[in-house]
């Protein structure tokens, strides 16, 4: 199984995540889509590391994991704050700011 398939898969996952961010309105779901994108990137990083025969890609994947985790924490914090203020986590409800 050539690495290309993994790249395609990661591209697919990434696009899925991106589309999800664009179409879904619930903050938490949007946020999960972002995480999906990050992990898709991880996949391609590892694949490229395999192709290039180096370890950099895999190390990068570590860092990406950390960043993803940090984003999770921050995101949960913000979403929780807004969720306690108004009992909903839907981006649609946050319409005070004019577009």
């Amino acid at each position, binding site marked *: 199984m050539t690495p290309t398939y993994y*790249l395609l898969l990661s591209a697919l996952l*990434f696009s899925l*995540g*991106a589309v999800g*961010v664009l179409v879904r309105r619930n*903050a938490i779901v*949007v*946020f999960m889509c*972002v995480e999906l*994108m*990050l992990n*898709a*990137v991880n996949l*391609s*990083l590892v*694949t*490229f590391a395999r*192709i*290039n025969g*180096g370890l*950099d*890609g895999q190390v*990068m994947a570590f*860092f*990406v994991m950390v*960043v993803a985790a*940090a*984003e999770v924490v*921050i*995101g949960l*914090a*913000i*979403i929780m*704050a*807004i969720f*306690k*203020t*108004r*009992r909903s986590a839907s*981006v649609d409800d*946050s319409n*005070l*700011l*004019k*577009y």
Partner: protein
Amino acid sequence: MTTFLSQNVERLQAPEIDYFAVAPLLIVLGAACAGVLVEAFLPKAQRWAAQVVLVLATLAAAGALLVAYASDEGTPDQGKTTLAGAISVDQPTIFLWATLLLLGLGSVLLIADRSVEPGGAFMPEATPSGGTYRDQAGGGAQALMTREQATRFGMQTEVFPLTLFALGGMMVFVAANDLLTMFIALEVLSLPLYLMCGLARRRRLLSQEAAVKYFLLGAFASAFFLYGVALLYGYAGSVKLADIATATSGTDRSDTLLYAGFGLLVVGLLFKASVGPFHAWTPDVYQGAPTPVTAFMAACTKVAAFGGILRVLYGAFERSSWEWQGVLWGVAIVSMVIGAVLGLTQTDVKRMIAYSSVAHAGFLLVGAISLNEQGLSGTMFYLMAYGFTTIAAFGVVSLVRNADGEATHLSQWAGLAKRSPVVAGVFTFLLLALAGLPLTSGFIGKFAVFAAAVEADMTPLVVVALVASAVAAFFYLRVIVLMYFSEPAADGPAVSVPGAFTTMAITMGVLFTLVLGVWPPKVLEWAGTGAFIF
């Protein structure tokens, strides 16, 4: 998995680190950690003072060390790369670090002020979120809150360590020499900002929604950036800018990866810089965030983002410029047009400045893509000038208040000159600087950038930019007209007397705007001293 072999295997060679060069960085980040400890162990009463002292001392120390390093004869003229080539402390880095530290100082002063808004602009301790605070019915936390209560509750001093973390991230970002470091720095500077946006004392819902919007879009953008990094890694087999540059000069690789990677990467960067079509978050966040934080974002984030853009473009993609320059032309034009045109329709001061920042991002991009020394120095000068003007402008905005917080609606600014001619005069000066009139730093910056662009045969772009800035001038003028020529509204806002900190911040901003406009040569030369090294 062979256990015993690993006993006597040779030690790993530790990368040598030039601590002197990266000292400012270490100080800022270390102080941020110290700030967290202060939060943890000091009683609530002493936190604010301790934090302010800590932050100011940190900035001072970092600045001093930076000057010491820059002026030390031991340092190579073109700077050096350290930390195994991850960080390069070259002349642009030093310039940008100095800019960041100064602008950071200004923003911190704004953040620390507790006199304009009793108790500070940030949500009080122990009142987690609007809904659960007892004065639910009132507009913002202050409705049922007396001044004493406000000052007793104080403000959430976590904002100081957060600021330092963000600042440290920015400093790494402009110095990062490989894309991975850049990405980490990007996150380190973004995550605290997301939180800071949601901490406003007034209009907490607005603030929190600004935070959530900024966060979601920001995470989205950084995912793009990261995917770009991955593709470029696949393309060049390394994330070092230099390696990518060498790879682009080679021909045997797949250009698809290069273009896709570059595109995604740049999208992420442009988002942070709130350029062109990737500006969607800017007005909302600028409006919703607490004004001091807005000032911090508008000034420092812009500097950091464009520092990164410059480094990436010059370091990694200069050779392949003919591939992408056209696209960035378009982006710059879109950005300038959006900023100028949508700015006309705004009725809120903060949103207006937000759109103007979009337009300015366009101008900056014009300088950044001209890819010559004038472009580099001009853009950096522009960044410094714009940063100071913006900080002072937001400082003034934070002064104009009515019963429930800042009166940011334009109609409330009518006839401000009657109430307080000084504030109106200062703001007028800043607006003229933003509009780029001569004798203000804005003009010199524009001139430098556009000169570089014409140098690079981008005259049409420059003409567009000039027209855009003429259009943009219109909405600055509108504010001046409101302040001076129209009669004040009956229940207009009062201009609260600024505390020492805010005064210092505004004064600093105005002074720099004036000095950089009237006597810029020194700074211009400094900005032009050296190029990036990789």
